[in-house]
């Protein structure tokens, strides 16, 4: 009996204390909270430091996506690079989990601190490549997949990638 009375009084006291603390609520949208750069919001496709598309259409984001809201088709450019012929994210399904970003081997797909994506028409939530592609490198500034990969592309021959020896001359008898 005494215990329950104490408990109730303590609760009332705690609530009363909160009347004098600073409010957490902000006057959104006039006032906007700070969101860290790694906040998981709207998804973008970035470019590498040399200004080329980073996405190589490997499909790993699509398969990592738990709601299956990413669809793309690979193509090959004349210079030998793989790229997405189309890249579609259905944001009306996206749960902003960031799994696609974690799966991406080229740092192409990144989540941004922008979460304001309201539409009256759901079909406007379907973003194609031209809506997703940005000009910059996003959060990761230095990485360029093709400098590391063994695939030869125009301007980077076999043996010219990082940590690669020049191509072997098959006809050489030297050890």
């Amino acid at each position, binding site marked *: 009996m005494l215990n329950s009375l104490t408990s109730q009084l303590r609760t009332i006291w705690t609530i009363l204390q909160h009347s004098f603390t600073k409010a957490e609520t902000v006057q959104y949208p006039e006032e906007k909270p700070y969101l860290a750069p790694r906040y998981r919001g709207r998804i973008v496709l970035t470019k590498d430091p040399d200004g080329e598309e980073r996405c190589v259409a490997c499909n790993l984001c699509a398969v990592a996506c738990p709601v299956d*809201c990413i669809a793309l088709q*690979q193509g090959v450019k004349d210079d030998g690079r793989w790229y997405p012929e189309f890249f579609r994210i*259905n944001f009306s*399904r996206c749960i902003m989990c960031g799994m696609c970003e974690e799966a991406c081997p080229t740092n192409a797909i990144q989540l941004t601190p922008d979460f304001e994506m309201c539409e009256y028409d759901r*079909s406007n939530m379907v973003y194609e490549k031209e809506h997703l592609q940005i000009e910059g490198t996003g959060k990761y500034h230095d990485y360029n997949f093709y400098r590391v*990969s063994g695939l030869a592309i125009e301007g980077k021959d076999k043996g010219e990638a990082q*940590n690669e*020896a020049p*191509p*072997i001359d098959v006809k050489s008898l030297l050890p």
Partner: protein
Amino acid sequence: MPVITIDGVSYEVESGRNLLETCLSLGLDLPYFCWHPAMGSIGACRQCALVQYQNAEDTRGRIVMACMTPVSDGALFSLAGDKARHFREAIVESLMLNHPHDCPVCAEGGECHLQDMTVMVGHRDRHYRGRKNTHRNQYLGPLINHEMNRCITCYRCTRYYRDYAGGTDLAAMAAHDHIYFGRHQEGVLQSEFAGNLVEVCPTGVFTDKTLVHDYTRKWDLQSAPSVCTGCGVGCNTMPGERYGRLKRVHNRFNAEVNGYFLCDRGRFGAAFVNSGSALEYPGLREADGRYRALDHHEALHRMAATCASGKCAAIGSPRASVEANFLLRELVAPENFAPGFSDAEQGLVSLALTLQLASRAGIPSIRSIESADAVLVLGEDVTNTAPRIALALRQSVRNKAYELAAGLRLEPWQDAAIRNLAQDQRSPMFIATVADTPLDDVAAKRFSLAPDDIAALGRAVAATISGKPLPSGVLPEHLHSEARMIAETLAGAQRPLVIAGTGCGSSAILQAAADVANALCDNARKAMICLCVPEANSLGQAMLCGTQAPDLAALQRRAEAGELDTLIVLENDLYRRGGQAQIDGLLAAFREVIVMDGLDNRTTSAATLALPAANFAESEGTLVSLEGRAQRYFPVFQPREERRPSWVWLLACMKEMELPECHSMHHFDDITRICAARIPALAGITAAAPDLHYLNLGVKIPRQPPRYSGRTAMRANISVHEPKQREDEETPLAFTMEGLNRSQPGALLPWVWAPGWNSNQSLHKFQTRAGGPLKGGTAGARLLPTGGGGNGNAATSQAQPARAESTAGTTTGQRWQLVPRPRIFGSDELSALSPALAELIVPGFIELCTADAASLGVKDGDGVDVGDGLATLEVRVNDSMVAGCAGYSAGFSGTGELAALAQVTLRRADAWQRAPELIGSDRGIGSGGGHV
């Protein structure tokens, strides 16, 4: 059976196997690279290490390679112990030293055996800090992509390409870490089976070039069990689809038919499905000759009205399913239904069926062909007419090696040892054809003979086996001793095999082959006879129609007499079945011509009503292969627009006409069942695959793998509201990833995948033992007696033509015997439309021997006019061609007029110019070699 102990657990295992296949069969995950169930062990990669202990007291043990270790009773092994585990991890680490950072841009990624094995051994951190070796790639043709950096030197490619498939232009070159797997110089891979490198290579060195440029990962492909429509063999395939396009064809294991391998026609020929000339809407020809698109209601109404008012005849097709042909036959009555062969072919196929039914010899499956220890090939160039059989024949000649090995108690999987032991000793194979064949290098002897002489040789062999005297004057003198030698070899063999076929257009050869097989059976041998037929359902069509079916000419006569006025053509380009004038006349004899076909061709262009028929990847059906195996194919994806399977069009038309026959037909299975009940020869087709009520432990079988991605985005650009997945109302498969792909019958296997095994090596999880038949049973139902049920009566030869008539070509000087020379790429109608194969097809030509070419005054590359203007073809001088015969590329454009001819005149065509050819730079050798 020996009992072995692995990690303290005792297993009773099959003797005569190696430890690796035993572990895999037991369900234990043991990494490996170089071993392949069809190619045995060489112990090259050192990956499948286990620790073997001498006895229970031995605590150190020693590392052994599982693939090189036979199982023996009481042996003690450790698979999960630290010593073996660390060794395996170190091996993967060393294999990965030079492996490039390519997985995201590698077409093998996601179904890569190297990825799987790396994860399986737990290798993560690289310790080596040196630079990676690199290599330059080669252009290997339009089918195979080369990326040598990714190689782990397991030697599977050369072992497959050289040792298994008999290719010569791919080899391991240079030494130590310079080793390079490729050709001596850039160029198209010459083997007809090069495509299997894609599946044999455990990593991404050899990948499917047609896929690389329109790539989809394995987990995103929607697949269904299918059957190749490229030839009569009936190899099982798994076509994969994404976004409405057929992306690739992979092998579907069938222990009795194709095993692990397909030919390139089958693997790369199915791309015709994506052709831009596919019909999408029904079309009605207007008065001005143009077509007006209709919707399917209107088209059906029109078709039913035409059929109801007219006197209908129909032409079926040996490339359409049994069910569609059966429905059409029911619609028009059997006496008005022509099977759709050319006039010459109809007799040959029907004879092949009659001979096989009557034969006392067994009809071998492809696997049984591999077991033959003496082979006689009469007339047929199997590499070009039924390619998978040629690959099987290459294995059959190795039976001598296995025999020698058994004498030394070597197990059959000891691949290198057995090849060393046998060297060039092979089981005998005799080939009698009009000219060289790609199998010549493994044949004991090949004879270049005119078709009638081939038949005479066959009859002489049969007579010798039976102990009868050789008929005089029929066989050239110099062949008498040869015939005796062949007869002795065949009669001395345990499992002799005779192969012939319709490929060179001679019924006498078919009969001679049957004579030899029956003579062997009289000698109490277990002989086998294999008669090749040209198309996927040729034999099924012969079974459906019987021997009394009308041919094209008969239909035309009756139409001209006014008995018939409406013609329905089912999936058949008639202009490939006869000369232009003949088919023009046939079509002109009918008032209405309704054509159902998937692609636009000359016959659809001549139709008054054209209906778009779904192709094999969009529909279901049963095909009867040349061994009499009824096999079901299932739709891989849904047909677009107004395309419908032919049986759907026909059934709907019959319902519209309210025909009593179709009252009990609601589903595809009903047609199969009624067809089986109505046609005794086809009674077995219901057993080809389970019907639509089959459930796999209560659920359907998914066409999509569990990681199928993009479901909520694929069609979001069309509508963001996702439709319900289409239910498949005709088959036990579902167009979703829901369901169970395990332990179902082999005929219903849409893809292979197992946890930890993303590559096609996961197949062993679906097999009763590694390399053995599927757990759910082998797909297909045999309709012909496999053990030889006939009495041989129908197989006795007709009156033998005198030799003087048979070689009229040489004696009359100006007349040449025209013989078809089918080619793997180009002779088949549909696969020739595949863009990748089209690059390999050279225009049709005519082959002559040097003396004949000289007598005509032509040389290599000149043109000749065939049969007074019927065709003009390029000359290829081929000295293996028999004199007096001219071999033309059958089935090629420009040779349609020649099919019906036996004797022609040849004349030098002075005005002829060689067709332009692609040169290297057009094919991207210069620029594309290093890329992609």
